[in-house]
C-alpha cells in the first residue's frame, strides 16, 4: 500500500529506536544495535559502503571562522601591485559588509613551492610544507553564504539553515560504528562553541545515535561521564545492580518489550564508557617523541596538538568520524598577526597527524579533510577609517585540502582569478565537495538517503557531482 512501509524487521527497529515517523533506506548500525543488526543479517537494507573505497574513516579539521586562501595556499602576487588601491562594490546581492568604500590588501606572508609536487604554501606553514606530497589542495570550491553560522551549517550539514544531519552523522549512519563502546562520530570543539552551536554536529532528522558526541577540551569530556564527588565506582555498580534487579522483574511481566531491554543495556554501556573514554583521553601512554611531534606541552601548539593526537587515537579505536575545531580564523583586521598566530598553532599538530597516520600505516585508509566555512576577500572595508589590513568573508573562493585514503596526493586542483576573489577553474559548489567526501568513504550520496518530511533527504540536498580529479 505504501512504498515506505517496510518489512517486519523495520517495525522491530522502530520499536527499538522509536524512529517514529521516519524510516531510513540504509541500515541503522549504531552505538547500541550491534546485536540487533547481527540478528538482522538478511535485512537487505543493512548498511556498509556502497562501493569499494580506500578511506574507512575521516578526520575533518574544521578551521572555523574562514581561513584566508590568499594568505595560506593560494598566493596572489597581483595584490602586491594593487595594495591599498581603493574600489567600490555595490548591488542588490551585496551585504552591508561587502559594499561601500574598500581597498585591496596584499598578503603579509611569503610563499614558497614545497615538496616534490611544488605546492604553493605560505612559509608560515613550516611543518605542513614537508607533507604537501600527501595533500591534494583544492581551490575551486564555492560556498553560498557569507555569514558564519549559515556557512558553518552549510559545510557541516549541507543545509545553510541548520537542523539537518552533519556529515559525520551521515557517515556513521552509512557505515556504522566499529567500536560499540564508543560513539561513531566524535567532535573535538574549541572551548567556545562555534556560532550556531551544537547544531553543527547534529543528527538532524537521523536517529539520535548518530549525533556527534563532543569531547570537551576542559572539564568532563562527556557531560556527566563521572558520578558526582563522593560517589565511588562501587557505589555506582551497586546502584546499577539494584536498578537491574528491579528492572528485571518489571521486564518479566512485559516480555518482548525490546525497548526496555535496550534501555537496560544502555546503562551497562554507559558504565563501560566511564572507563573507556578516560583511557582514550589519557595521553600519558604515548611516548615522549610522539607528544613532542604534535607540539604537546608547548604553549602555542598544545591545545590543537592534543586534539590531533586524540583524533588519531579515536580513529585507531574505531571511531568512524572525528571533527576537530581550530580557530577563530575570522581575521577582519590585523591578519598578519591573527593568521600568523593561528597557523603556528595548527601547523605542527596537523603535520604531525599526517606523519603519525602514515607511520602507522593508517593514512592510506583515513581521509583527512581541512577546510573552513568560506574563504576571504582580497580587499577590506574602510572600517573606522583605519587600514588595519584584514579581509572580509568570501563565499566565492576558498582553499580546502584533502589527504589520505583515496586522495590524489601531491596535486593542486582548481584555480581562482588573479586577485583570489572568485574560483574560475574546476569550480564546484559545496554539495559536490560533500558528494566527493562521501565517495572517498565509499558512500554514494544518491543512495545515502533518509525519508523525512515528505521526501528522501541526502547530504547534498538535491544531489551533486563528485570531483573526480581529487580521487586517486
Amino acid at each position, binding site marked *: *500500500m*505504501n512504498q515506505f512501509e517496510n518489512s517486519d524487521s523495520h*517495525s522491530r527497529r522502530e520499536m*527499538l*529506536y*522509536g*524512529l*517514529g*515517523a521516519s524510516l531510513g533506506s540504509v541500515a541503522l548500525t549504531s552505538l*547500541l544495535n550491534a546485536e540487533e543488526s547481527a540478528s538482522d543479517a538478511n535485512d537487505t537494507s543493512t548498511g556498509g559502503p556502497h562501493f569499494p573505497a580506500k578511506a574507512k574513516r575521516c578526520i575533518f579539521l574544521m578551521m572555523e*571562522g574562514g581561513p584566508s586562501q590568499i594568505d595560506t595556499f593560494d598566493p596572489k602576487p597581483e595584490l602586491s601591485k594593487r595594495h591599498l588601491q581603493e574600489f567600490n562594490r555595490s548591488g*542588490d*546581492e551585496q*551585504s*552591508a559588509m561587502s559594499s561601500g568604500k574598500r581597498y585591496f590588501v596584499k598578503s603579509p606572508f611569503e610563499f614558497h613551492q614545497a615538496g616534490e609536487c611544488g605546492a604553493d604554501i605560505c612559509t608560515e606553514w613550516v611543518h605542513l610544507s614537508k607533507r604537501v606530497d600527501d595533500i591534494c589542495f583544492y581551490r575551486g570550491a564555492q560556498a553560498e553564504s557569507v*555569514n558564519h*553560522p549559515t556557512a558553518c551549517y552549510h559545510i557541516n550539514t549541507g543545509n545553510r*539553515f*541548520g*537542523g539537518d544531519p552533519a556529515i559525520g552523522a551521515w557517515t556513521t549512519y552509512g557505515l556504522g560504528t566499529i567500536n560499540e563502546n564508543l560513539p561513531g562520530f566524535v567532535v573535538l570543539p*574549541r*572551548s567556545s*562553541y562555534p*556560532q550556531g*552551536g551544537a547544531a553543527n554536529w547534529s543528527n538532524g532528522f537521523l536517529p*539520535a545515535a548518530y549525533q556527534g558526541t563532543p569531547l*570537551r577540551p576542559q572539564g*568532563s569530556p562527556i557531560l*556527566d561521564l*563521572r558520578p*558526582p564527588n*563522593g560517589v565511588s565506582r562501587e557505589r555506582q555498580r551497586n*546502584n546499577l545492580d*539494584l*536498578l537491574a534487579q*528491579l528492572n528485571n*522483574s*518489571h521486564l518479566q511481566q*512485559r516480555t*518482548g518489550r525490546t525497548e526496555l531491554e535496550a*534501555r537496560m543495556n*544502555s*546503562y551497562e554501556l554507559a558504565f563501560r564508557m566511564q572507563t573507556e573514554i578516560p583511557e582514550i583521553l589519557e595521553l600519558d601512554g604515548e611516548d615522549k617523541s610522539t607528544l613532542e611531534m604534535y607540539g604537546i606541552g608547548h604553549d602555542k601548539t598544545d591545545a590543537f596538538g592534543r586534539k590531533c593526537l586524540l583524533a588519531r587515537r579515536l580513529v585507531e579505536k574505531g571511531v568512524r568520524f572525528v571533527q576537530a575545531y581550530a580557530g*577563530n580564523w575570522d581575521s*577582519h583586521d*590585523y591578519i598578519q*598577526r*591573527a*593568521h600568523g*598566530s593561528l597557523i603556528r598553532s595548527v601547523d605542527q599538530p596537523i603535520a604531525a597527524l599526517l606523519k603519525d597516520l602514515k607511520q602507522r600505516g593508517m593514512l592510506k585508509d583515513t581521509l583527512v579533510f581541512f577546510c573552513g566555512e568560506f574563504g576571504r576577500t582580497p580587499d577590506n572595508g574602510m572600517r573606522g577609517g583605519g587600514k*588595519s589590513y*584584514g579581509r572580509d*568573508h568570501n563565499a566565492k573562493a576558498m582553499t580546502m585540502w584533502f589527504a589520505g585514503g583515496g586522495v590524489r596526493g601531491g596535486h593542486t586542483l582548481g584555480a581562482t582569478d588573479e586577485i583570489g576573489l572568485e574560483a574560475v577553474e574546476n569550480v564546484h559548489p559545496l554539495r559536490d565537495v560533500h558528494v566527493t567526501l562521501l565517495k572517498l568513504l565509499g558512500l554514494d550520496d*544518491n*543512495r545515502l*538517503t533518509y*525519508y523525512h*518530511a*515528505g521526501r528522501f533527504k541526502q547530504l547534498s540536498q538535491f*544531489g551533486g557531482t563528485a570531483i573526480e580529479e581529487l580521487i586517486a
Partner: protein
Amino acid sequence: MHLIAARHFAILPLLIGIQAAAPACAAEPAATDVTPGEKLFALRVQTLFVEKCHACHGADPDDLGGEFDMRDRISMRKGGESFGGEVLLPGDAKKSHLYLVTTRQEAGYEMPPKEAEKLTEEQTWWIRDWINLGAPWPSDERIAAIKNEFAEGVTAPTSGGLNANWTNRRYEPEHLWAYQPIEVESVPSDQHPIDYFIDRRLAAAKLTAAADAEPMKLLRRISFDLTGLPPSEDLASRTNFVESYELNAAGAVTDLVQRLMSTPHYGEHFGRQWLDVARYADSAGFANDYSRPNAWRYRDYVVRAFNNDKPYDQFVREQIAGDEITTASPESLVATGFLRMGPWEQTGMSVFRVTRQQWLDDVTDSVGQVFMGHALQCAKCHDHKFDPVPTRDYYSMMAIFSTTQFSEPATPFLDSENQTGFQKSNQWTTAKITAYQKQLDELQATVGQARRKETGNAKIGDNGLSPGDEASLGRMRKNIGRHTWELDRTRPIAYAVHTGKTFERKNVSNRLRLPQNVWGEGYIEDDTILVGGDAFTRGESVKPAPLSAAVNLGNMDVKEFPAGKGKRRLALANWIVDPKNPLTARVMVNRIWSWHFGKGIAGNPNNFGGTGRLPTHPALLDFLADWFVKNNWSVKRLNELIVTSKAYRRSSRHHDPAELKKLDPKQALYATQQPRRLTAEELRDAMLAASGELNRQIGGIPCRPDLNLEVAMQPRQIMGGTASVYEPDASPQQRNRRTLYAEKTRGLRDPFMETFNQPGPDKSCELRETSTVAPQALTLMNSDEAQDRAIAMAARLLKQGSSPQDVLKRAFEIALGRQAQADELQACLAHWNAATKEETLKTYQPRHYPSETQRTVMAEKTGEPYEFLEIMPAYDHYVPDLQPSDVDANTRGLAQVCLVIFNLNEFAYLD
C-alpha cells in the same frame, strides 16, 4: 517464471483495453487503431521520461547530461556521448542501453542516478516492452487522445504546473485522500464511535483486543497524557478512582478526564505539544541568537487557549491573522507570534532580500505543515513531485504573506497573564548591564590612554594593550545591547506582525516598533514565481491564493483573495477553517490522536500528501474530523471522546502476544495500547513532583533552571564576541518550575532535554522521537539535576518520621503510583542501609557559588586567547537546592535508592 507472469500482468490490461476500445465521445478526437506500443508510450513511458529523465536530459537544452536529449525520438535515436546509437534500438531492448541503464546492473551507469528515484522493476519493463514494440512515438495530439480514452488514475485539478505534462499528470486515487471531502459514516447510537471503527477492523482480522488496563496504570497514563504530570499523590483520590473504575469504568474515566482537564496543567501539557509543532523558542538563532524577550506571551497564549478550550478554528484564525482581525485585543496580537517562531536574523553581513525570502519560505512551508499537513517547500523550485501542489500554488501561498511585516507593538498585559517575578528579572538584567558598563568604562579609559600614545602605523599589540582588550570592548558593548533588549521581557509588548509595506533593514538588533503609517515608507513586494527558488530571479506573476487542489477536489467555494493592501492572511485563515476545507479538521484531529496513541491515524501528522503514510482507519479519521467541527472545534471534548474509548483504555499487554504479532505485525489495529517513554520535560517534571520541589505556578516570563554547570559556563560565540554566561534564577522556586517555562535558547540547549529527545526548535516537530542512548543513562545517574532531586525526595520522605519500611512504601507510591512488593522493599532496604553505612564515613562541603567567573576565549584580531572576568549577579543571592552537606548520612543513603527509582524503566515508561 515469476518474471514472465508479472510482465504479462503489467501489460495485459493495456492490450485488453485496446480491443475493447470504441470512440467514447464524438467531440473528442478518437484514438483509433492504437497499437500496444503507442499506448504504452502515451500512458506510461512518456511520463516516466519526463519525471525521471528530463531534469538532466531535456529540461535545459543547453545543458544536456552526457549530451543526451530525450525530448523526441530522433534525438533519442542519436544517443549521447556514452552509448551513441546504441541507446535505443527499436525492437531490441536487450541491446538498448536506454533499458539496460534502468536495470542498474552496471556500476557507474545507473539511471536515474539517485537510488531514491530508481525505477521499479515494472517501470523498467514498460521501457523494455516499449522498445521491443518498436519504440513508437505518437504525436502530441494522438497522445492526448490516447490518454483521454485509456488513462488510469485520476487527475487533480490545480492552478496549473510549469508544464502541461505535470498539469495533466494522474494520481493514484488513494494518494489524494486528504483532499477529498470528508465522508461521514453513521455510527449506531449505542456504540462509542471510536470503538465502533476500531473493533470492526479487529473483528475483520479475527483479533481479540487486550483487556482493560489495570486502574492504577491507567490512572498514571491518563494523568501524563492529559497534564504531563504524575497522578495526584493523594491516596484517597487514587483509591477512589480504583473503586469507581471497578464499578463503572467509563464513568470513572469520564470524571477523571474532566477533572484533569479542569486543572491548568492540562493547558500546559497540550500547549507544550503545540509548541513542538510551532517550534517555540525564546531566541532567534544564528549568529547573534538574540533574545526574543516577548515570545513567552505567545507560549502562554497557547496554554490559555487549551485551558479555555478556545475553539480550534478561532485558535487558527488568531495565529495566522490575529492582527487583521483586531489590533484591540492583546490575545489577537500575541497569537501572531506563531508566524515568527522560526529562526531568523538580519545582520550587517546578510542581504535583506535573502533573509526576507528566507522568512517567506519558512512561513509558507510552516503554515502548510502545521495547519494543512503539507510540507510545501518541495514546490519551491519545481512543481511537487508527488502531490498536486504546483509551484504556482507555492508562490500564491507566499504572496499571502508578502505584506506581512515584523513588529513588536505596545500591547497591554491581560489580567490572566502571570506578571510575577518581573522585578527580580529586571534587577538581574540591570545588574548585568551595570557590571558590563563599569568594566567598559574602566577599559575604555585604559585603551584611550594607550591609543593617544599610538603612532600612525601602529598595529594591535604595539600600544601596550593586552590582546583581549579591544576584543573585550566589542564584547561588552554587544552584551550591554543584548541585555538592554532583554529588559523588554517585562514590558507590555507583543512579538507580533502587521500588514504593510516592506521596509529594508540592514541590521536588526533591537525591538521593531510598529510604524506610524504602515503604508508609508517602503514598497509592496511583487508577487511572482521565483524561478528555481532563487530570490533574485523573478518569473510569472501570481496572486494570493490557497492550495488549488484542496479547493477543487474538496468542492470548496472559490473565493478571490484580496491583494494589494487587503487582509490577505485573514482570507487564508478563513479559508483554512472553512468547514468544507478537507484538510484542516483532519490534520488537527490526527495530531490530537497522535498525542494520545503515540502515532497518528495517518502516520505523518505534518504530511498528508502522497508520500505520507496513508491513514490506517480513514473512516474513523473522517468521523472524528466531522465530529470535531460539529462540536465547535472543541479539543477538550475530543480528548474526552478519545480517552473514554475502550481502545485508549486497553492494557499495553496482550494475552496472546504470538497471535497479536501474527495478525497485526505492524501494530496498526489498536489491539493494545502502546507503551511510551516520558518526554524529556515529563521526566524532569516527574522528578520534581516526586521530590516535592515542583512549583506549579502557571505562565509568566521564562524561568532559568539549573543547567549542567559546564554547559552554563561554556563560552558561546556570537557575532562580535562571546555571549554572557548562563545564570540560573536565584530562587529554587523559580528554577524548579515546569520545564515548559524554562528559557529556550536556540544556541544553548539544555543537555538534559536534548539527550531525552526534546526536538530542536528550528523545524516543526510532528511527533517526538524516542531513542535509547548511553548518554541518557549518564545524565539520569550522574547529573546534578538527578542527584539533587534524589536528595530532596529522600529528605521529604524522611520528614514524615515513619518506619524505614513505610518510607520506602511511600517512595514507590509517589514515584511509580503503586504498592511496593515485599522483595522490592527488602532489596531497597538493604541498599539503603549499605549506602548509609558508606555515607556515615563521608563529609561534604557545601557547594560554593562564586559570583564572578574567569573566562577564556580567542581574540579574532590577534588569533590568541585572552581571559576576562565576568560578573554573575544571579549568584549574589543564589539559594541552592538541598545539598548532600545539608542532610545526614541516612538521608544520603536513602537518596541512592531514590536515584535508582528515577532510573527505573517503570519510572520512565507508561504502560
